[in-house]
């Protein structure tokens, strides 16, 4: 009689978490193909793999750097809401503003917001969870204060970022691909990446090696904030507007995605490509739920379930 493998043995059999992501993704894609004939439609595939993952992907990349350095950011969603609202609002006032200037403004605001989070965590020594939970409320409040409801009026020139294409390749994919590659290289090949991983793995050891732990954490929030603003830029360009509810869900989704992608919530372990794999899993999963027209409450419930399974898998792996 063959023995039924335990969860731990199955995790082992699947190998490293890096590989696990892609296995889960493959299984999920096969399941989707079987479960819904609509899944394999060209428009749907384009949506699932080229459009949906970009916004969440950019948010998840920022989250990745922050989590790897030993932090967490719960304010992503409201940061995105605030920034898209501001982008739309500013364009309404100055419709002729050059899109690149707007990109620069957004990146600057993202960096500033990241810096504020970073200062609260690294200098005021508020735990990342509480600091960003509080900042989530503050940014959400600011977003609602600034824009009561969704604002349109993003000019066509700016929307090119999401809607345009170069040589047949969607602009959003060109930019997103570039940013993923950049993040990967920074994490793996740059001294900043090494510091982020070291601080997340063991802040005490890092300090003994002469790394400025507080500064590294601060910079991870700053870098993360800029990536969040990239997400806001893309979403504003895609929707042609912004609003105080645009970012809803991005906080938990970005965390779920990177955890599925093998980024350890205790910091120090994980990589950019795995996180991206996690984003694709979330994207396919949401798409499948929509295609099957599952009750939206059930969707929420399932999201929670995935989060628990993802975290349990990684902690199971760690004990093994």
């Amino acid at each position: 009689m063959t023995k039924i493998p335990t969860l731990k043995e199955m995790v082992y059999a699947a190998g490293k978490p890096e590989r696990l992501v892609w296995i889960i993704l493959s299984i999920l894609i096969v399941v989707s193909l079987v479960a819904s004939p609509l899944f394999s439609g060209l428009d749907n595939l384009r949506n699932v793999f080229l459009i949906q993952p970009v916004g969440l992907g950019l948010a998840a990349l920022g989250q990745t750097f922050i989590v790897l350095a030993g932090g967490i950011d719960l304010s992503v969603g409201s940061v995105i809401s605030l920034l898209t609202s501001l982008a739309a609002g500013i364009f309404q006032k100055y419709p002729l503003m050059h899109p690149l200037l707007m990109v620069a403004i957004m990146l600057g605001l993202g960096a500033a917001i990241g810096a504020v989070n970073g200062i609260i965590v690294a200098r005021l020594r508020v735990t990342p969870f509480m600091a960003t939970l509080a900042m989530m409320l503050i940014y959400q409040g600011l977003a609602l204060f600034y824009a009561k409801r969704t604002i349109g009026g993003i000019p066509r020139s700016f929307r090119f970022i999401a809607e345009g294409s170069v040589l047949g390749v969607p602009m959003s994919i060109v930019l997103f691909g570039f940013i993923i590659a950049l993040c990967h290289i920074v994490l793996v090949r740059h001294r900043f990446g090494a510091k982020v991983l070291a601080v997340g793995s063991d802040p005490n050891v890092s300090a003994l090696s002469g790394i400025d732990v507080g500064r590294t954490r601060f910079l991870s929030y700053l870098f993360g904030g800029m990536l969040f603003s990239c997400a806001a830029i893309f979403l504003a360009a895609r929707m042609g507007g912004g609003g105080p509810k645009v970012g809803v869900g991005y906080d938990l989704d970005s965390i779920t995605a990177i955890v599925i992608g093998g980024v350890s919530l205790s910091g120090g372990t994980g990589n950019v490509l795995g996180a991206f794999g996690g984003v694709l899993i979330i994207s396919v999963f949401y798409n499948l739920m929509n295609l099957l027209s599952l009750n939206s409450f059930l969707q929420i419930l399932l999201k929670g379930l995935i989060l628990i399974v993802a975290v349990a898998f990684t902690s199971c792996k760690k004990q093994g």
Partner: protein
Amino acid sequence: MSKDVAEGNVLELTGITKRFPGVLALDTVDMVFRKGEVHALVGENGAGKSTLMKILSGVYQADSGTILFSGGSVVFRNPSQAQDAGIAIIFQEFSLIRTFTVAENVFLNREPSGLAGFKDMRTARKETGNLLREIGFDLDPDARIEDLTVVQQQVVEIVKALSITATVLIMDEPSAALTDKELKNLFGIIRVLKARGVTIIYISHMLQEIFEIADRATVMKDGETIGTKNICETTKEELIRMMVGREIKDFFPASVRTRKEELLSVSGLRKGRKLDGVDFSLHAGEILGIAGMAGSGQTDLAKALFGVEAADSGEIKVLGKTLNIKSVRQAIGAGIGYISEDRKNYGILGPMAVRVNITVADLGRFLRGGVLSGKKEREEANKKIGELGIKVAGMNQRADTLSGGNQQKMLIARWLLKKPRIFIIVEPTRGIDVGAKTEIYRIMRALVESGSGILMVSSDLPEVIGISDRILVMRSGRIEGIIDQSGGLTTEERIMSLAVGHDYSFSEGIPS
């Protein structure tokens, strides 16, 4: 002020003082280190050795005093500054990132870098490989730390320190995790470094090591320097006297050897591949030492008896009654107490008051009408603090601010409230300084004289011989022999020969 160290010296410390809240950790310490010497630093825990070394390596800054380092007076604001100046330290706790590779750790925060701060890992790997070869150790620079053995990690620490091209290398308890053979390797490395003119500051509790490797030794006590001796002109006894201010003779309290009724009897105990049929009995009035090479089943036996990791089969009788111990609650109910070697994680409640630490395991008895009676609890805690001579500022002091010895006494006090007849104590004096060790031994002796029995697992052979009435020697999950010491104390060689299974002499080294 262009003062420099005297000819032949590399480092001169004068009047170094460091105060922590409530403690004067270093009190005007003077010390001189010569070029190319191995200088041992000895003293009880809390004597200030590690604090002094942390000041030298830039982790802490002195409140006052001067450090003269070849070239002039220096103050290191952080570890990188000390490294840049050429002072490297191998910390007591490993300072390696477990998820990083060997090369990444060796060059952590000092990565060779090219354009725009991108790392040049090829150079880092090559340099790491060269250093490893230099000290004659075969290790892959790309191996991840968490996949390495403790010894290999130790080697990485050493390579990391070497990569700094240090003129002073500080080793804080480098031998703690090493076997004899590996220790010889380490000593080989130290001799090579010494020949190159590197000054080595060697901190260790093991006097035997110090007499083998060091040229001079400085004794510290209570944050002061007691004196510096040339190793060839001193003895262990003299150094210990300087450390504790008392003779080693009255180190272990004499046994009155009153073996009474049988408390615990174990037969045929098995657990996976770790315990392979263990039989023995423990009597009231005796301390039963369990010795053996690391991993021979000693801790597994202790854990099985206390229900932490229950045995697969076998019989456990407590006071003649057969018990099936499957959980810690059952073991406690049967009158067994257990003190782990890992006080920090499985013993003390660090941030909580000493009072709570003592009473927490038996809060039920301080209830009055379902509510905790603070008065009764305080009385009982106070009584135990007095009985065991626990040195505290007050019973509300945080437990993690106590010294190791006082933490251990506090844990014994906790168990005393439950009045177990059988105590299992693993490594009772690990990380406890010499003076406090004697007190722990005296308490253990008093416990068995009042009718308890103690099962003591220890890897410290002098301790096993000094305190045990009988010694169980384990080898691959079995009891290899029981040595009764009522006819006189046994020798370390006798225990070792049972533990490794053949005639053993120290010159051969330990077969692995």
